[in-house]
């Protein structure tokens, strides 16, 4: 009880005032009005009642987190032991048969001689007879390719085998000053909190806690304290130091790029300062990240750093003309002249040799906005990768693990150029790369490929589809007859919840709140209305008026971050805050694979900028042209943000595939399940 309150007060005063914060209503901290508490869950005389009076205003009792063996365990097991190719897969189903006559002609033909058209009467198997006599092809010009080396070199694979266990071992031992300090603090706090038996252990990625008889409630509170207390502060300091430091901070936070060399010397770790320690804190143990670093621009590149931008431009496949008038505060985000990219990329269609057509297609669709939404983008990307893996063959003298990782990295960097990755995609890519890195070396190429493709399928099925179903199941219990549900934008999960509740025969009304310029809500509205739901449609401008009738707000999310911040379509924060002011519970539906360990306090440091033309022009209304000719003027800056961050204070509950949890418990899920699912 106490530690939680102290934790909040420690981190609250300065750090937390950056983002969207309205001064908290005074009566909130004293006692919650009954309306706020009632609709979601009747107050229960459980230990959670303690929580009701906490300043965060969370009246919800967190659902018990299920133990870690969900469906993930057999997932792991099957994936790892898949040394034999699964029967289900037939990736070589279609083989192209080249008629042998062609080969003969090609070899016998020499330039300068007269062309002899081969008149072979043999028919091609499986070819339908057509009315016109079939004609043969005569090869008249051949490109001579140098004969390739067909055998794989054995040495490389041996080398890989050697160095991997070593790095794994050294990584285990490292701890650092800041980490230990954090642990000590945490220990103290935990003692005060629980007075239970609580033992701590170290691990390679940050603080993890082993616990004996501590009730899970206390455990959640305790962990939240640790994170709130330290990570945001670190992050904040880095940001304040300027561009370089902030880019360093971004490295820390995304935790993708720990150099293997650093990890290899555990003895020097102790003497290092806290900054290095901070970077180690989240360090993963992924060996082939070096490759990625080489050819992919960092996903969190600071775009106001001119030299880095120049370097990235040289590598870029997509021609990117940077927009000129950018809002000062958002200079660090990439923004390009929209409209120049697509035609340019299209003309290069056949020239991009290393790019797989499926990946290319997905990139085009991202760029043109044909695919949007976290889940859809993730699925599309994975399906493209699956095809790319299917067609992949290891070049001579390379090992599959390294080469495929590099290949995937180049695809990813291409996709980033088309549109910045969403957090869910980042997680999915991490998963895939990790699966590649963890492939047993003994596997043959075809086995490895089929294993990977199975992994991808499983990821899509379990992490996206199954978890959506679970979320729907959970969320439907929160819908009662007579409810008025409000949703913003078009979230695939929320849509499914609404449809499912409708199928169950519940009587409720839906308010779809939408906003320009994308007007995604209209598509949702269309589908809902067709299914027979009674809907109200309004724009976000009117949300404060409509909120009076609303009993629940269901929101989708692009990601939920470690401090409970919900990163979602721009406008979500506004809706959540209005709902909070009206004491309407806000339920955020988000699959657990979209959670991220990053901590974000505002929507400035990481965001995505959309096409500024989209907001300066109104589609279909030519007469609204007040900004014509002004767009390129120096003193006009257009800002079209894609995402915003909703502070956890305005979120009553996060519905995820592990149950319904308060936003403060997100880090627990990130820590407990991320390791099992994505990284192991």
């Amino acid at each position, binding site marked *: 009880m106490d530690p939680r309150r102290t934790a909040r007060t420690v981190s609250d005063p300065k750090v937390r005032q950056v983002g969207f914060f309205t001064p908290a209503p005074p009566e909130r901290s004293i006692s919650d009005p009954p309306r706020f508490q009632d609709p979601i869950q009747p107050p229960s005389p459980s230990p959670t009642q303690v929580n009701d009076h906490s300043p965060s205003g969370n009246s919800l009792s967190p659902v018990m987190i299920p133990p870690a063996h969900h469906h993930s365990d057999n997932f792991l097991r099957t994936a790892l032991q898949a040394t034999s190719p699964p029967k289900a897969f037939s990736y070589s189903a279609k083989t*192209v048969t080249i008629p042998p006559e062609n080969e003969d002609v090609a070899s016998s033909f020499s330039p300068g001689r007269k062309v002899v058209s081969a008149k072979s009467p043999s028919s091609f198997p499986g070819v339908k007879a057509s009315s016109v006599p079939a004609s043969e092809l005569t090869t008249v010009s051949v490109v001579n390719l140098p004969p390739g080396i067909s055998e794989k070199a054995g040495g490389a694979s041996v080398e890989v085998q050697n160095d991997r266990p070593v790095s794994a071992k050294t990584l285990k031992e490292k701890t650092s000053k800041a980490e230990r300090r954090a642990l000590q603090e945490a220990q103290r706090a935990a003692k005060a909190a629980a007075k239970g038996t609580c033992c701590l252990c170290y691990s390679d990625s940050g603080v993890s806690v082993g616990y004996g008889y501590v009730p899970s409630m206390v455990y959640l509170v305790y962990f939240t304290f640790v994170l709130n207390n330290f990570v945001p502060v670190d992050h904040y300091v880095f940001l304040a130091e300027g561009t370089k430091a902030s880019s360093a901070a971004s490295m820390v936070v995304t935790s993708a790029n720990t150099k293997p060399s650093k990890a290899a010397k555990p003895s020097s770790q102790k003497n290092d300062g806290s900054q290095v320690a901070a970077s180690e804190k989240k360090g993963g143990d992924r060996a082939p990240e070096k490759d990625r670093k080489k050819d992919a621009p960092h996903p969190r590149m600071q775009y106001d750093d001119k030299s880095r931008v120049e370097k990235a431009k040289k590598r870029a496949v997509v021609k990117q003309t940077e927009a000129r008038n950018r809002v000062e505060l958002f200079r660090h985000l990439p923004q390009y002249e929209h409209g120049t990219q697509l035609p340019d990329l299209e*003309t290069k269609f056949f020239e991009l040799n290393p790019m797989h057509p499926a990946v290319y297609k997905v990139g085009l669709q991202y760029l043109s906005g044909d*695919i949007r939404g976290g889940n*859809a983008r993730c699925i599309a990307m994975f399906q493209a990768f699956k095809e790319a893996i299917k067609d992949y063959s290891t070049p001579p003298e390379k090992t599959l693990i390294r080469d495929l990782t590099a290949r995937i990295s180049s695809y990813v960097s291409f996709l980033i150029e088309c549109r910045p990755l969403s957090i869910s995609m980042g997680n999915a890519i991490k998963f895939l790369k990790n699966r590649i890195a963890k492939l047993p070396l003994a596997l043959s190429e075809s086995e490895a490929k089929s294993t990977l493709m199975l992994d991808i399928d499983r990821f899509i099925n379990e992490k996206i589809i199954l978890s959506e179903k679970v979320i729907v199941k959970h969320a439907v219990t929160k819908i009662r007859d007579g409810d008025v549900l409000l949703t913003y934008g078009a979230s695939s999960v929320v849509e499914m919840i609404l449809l499912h509740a409708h199928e169950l025969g519940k009587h409720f009304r839906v308010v779809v709140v939408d906003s320009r310029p994308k007007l995604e809500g209209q*598509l949702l509205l269309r589908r809902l209305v067709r299914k027979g739901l009674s809907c109200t449609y309004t724009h976000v401008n009117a949300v404060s008026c409509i909120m009076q009738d609303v009993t629940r707000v269901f929101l989708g999310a692009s990601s939920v971050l470690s401090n409970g911040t919900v990163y979602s379509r721009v406008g979500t924060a506004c809706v959540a805050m209005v709902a909070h002011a009206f004491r309407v519970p806000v339920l955020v539906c988000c699959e657990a694979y979209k959670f991220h360990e990053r901590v974000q306090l505002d929507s400035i440091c990481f965001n995505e900028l959309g096409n500024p033309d989209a907001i300066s022009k109104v589609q279909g209304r030519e007469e609204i042209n007040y900004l014509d000719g002004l767009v390129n003027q120096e003193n006009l800056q257009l800002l079209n943000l894609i995402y915003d961050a909703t502070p956890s204070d305005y979120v009553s509950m996060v519905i995820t595939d592990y149950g319904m949890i308060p936003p403060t418990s997100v880090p627990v899920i990130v820590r407990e399940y991320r390791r099992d699912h994505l990284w192991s």
Partner: protein
Amino acid sequence: MDFQVVVLAGGNSKNLTPLVSKELPKPLLPVANCPVLHYVLHQLEQSNLKDLIVVVEGEDAALLVGAWISGTFIDRLHVEIAAVPEDIGTAGALRAISHHLTAKDILVVSGDLVSDVPPGALAATHRRHDAAVTTMLCSIPVSGPLESGSSGGKDKAKKLGRYNIIGLDPSKQFLLHIATGAEIEKDARISKRILHAVGQMEMRSDLMDAHMYAFKRSILQEVLDIKDTFQSLKEDVLPYLVRSQLKSEALLNRTPQGEENSNEKVSSQNNQAFISRILANASTPSFHGLYSENPDGSSSTRKTHKCCVYIASSSSYCVRLNSIQAFMDINRDVTGDADHLLSPNNIIGPSPKLGTKTTVGPNCRLGEGSEMGDKCQVKRSIIGRHCRIGSHVKVVNSVVMNHVTIGDGCIIQGSVICSNVQLQERVVLKDCQVGAGFVVTAGSEYKAESLAKKEK
């Protein structure tokens, strides 16, 4: 990129009668001293498409074309030549080679297209929309010689046949209606279904079908199989696909469903449906999707396919060589405005021998080994290799092919003179076409005539 390229090179075109002959099939017709097929192949090579199938009408023509390709593009392109019977049309030609088509999508390019529009753009549009067919439209070229008012009216009447009437959706991405050939004169028949689904259609007559298509192979082969009377891609297959885009009957029955879901149980099918629904919901639906939807929102049995267009930007150059006028225009443009189309090694050979006081104006091209006498004038013209031109000759707005002998005092305006032609002294030609090997007797004057040797 899983594209197969088919170049329909054609054979002996009737539209170009005095110019093309048995010895010189249309693909080898020189445009600025460089066969017209070279432009297409060069363009494809530039976009990294090196596996080509070139379809030529007629065995003899195929031999000639094959010999030329193997001489020019050896070690640069992997070209396969298919000879098809004459007069089976473009659709027939594709039907004849359809068993060689294995890739997912087929890019069909006409061999007489002189253009700088990258084929990749078309292919990318095709892929992005997952279309059944994508066609390239370009704006109708400015035709007619720049400085000759005499032939203006007549040419316009002749060129009407090239116009298309094209219906586009408001986003200018989908093709809703196309009328080609003789249909232009008739009343336009527009499907009510399509109009209802789209709501708004934009009719354009300033666009031209450039005869560069990307087809989905399965659909193309099926159409060719079922409709065996179809002769032409442009006049039969494409309008058919456009007409039937909202009720594609037999077309999509054989979608690859069978391949995918045979391996797992019903649950995976559910998942598949789930995934496709998420993906479908994520994108802005085109009218196809909206149309195929039942009123209750579930996707129904109505099959649709998409017919997309890629509209080349107005700054790009794109002309088909399918008439004598077009031939003249292309020759003029290639040496003038659109000279970037010529690959550098073909621009000028070793400098020809010029007599004294001979002037060669701008926008001219002289082939290697040509000799000119004294006091000649050459303006906006192309002169091929090893021509012998006497003195006091004036060549304006004309094309002179290889091994032509022109006597003293000839005046040639707006004419095409094919290879091995002999013009004796003081011949005056205006807007004429002289077939290969013809001998024009001394002192004769011709105006707007087509001269050719009698077929033996």
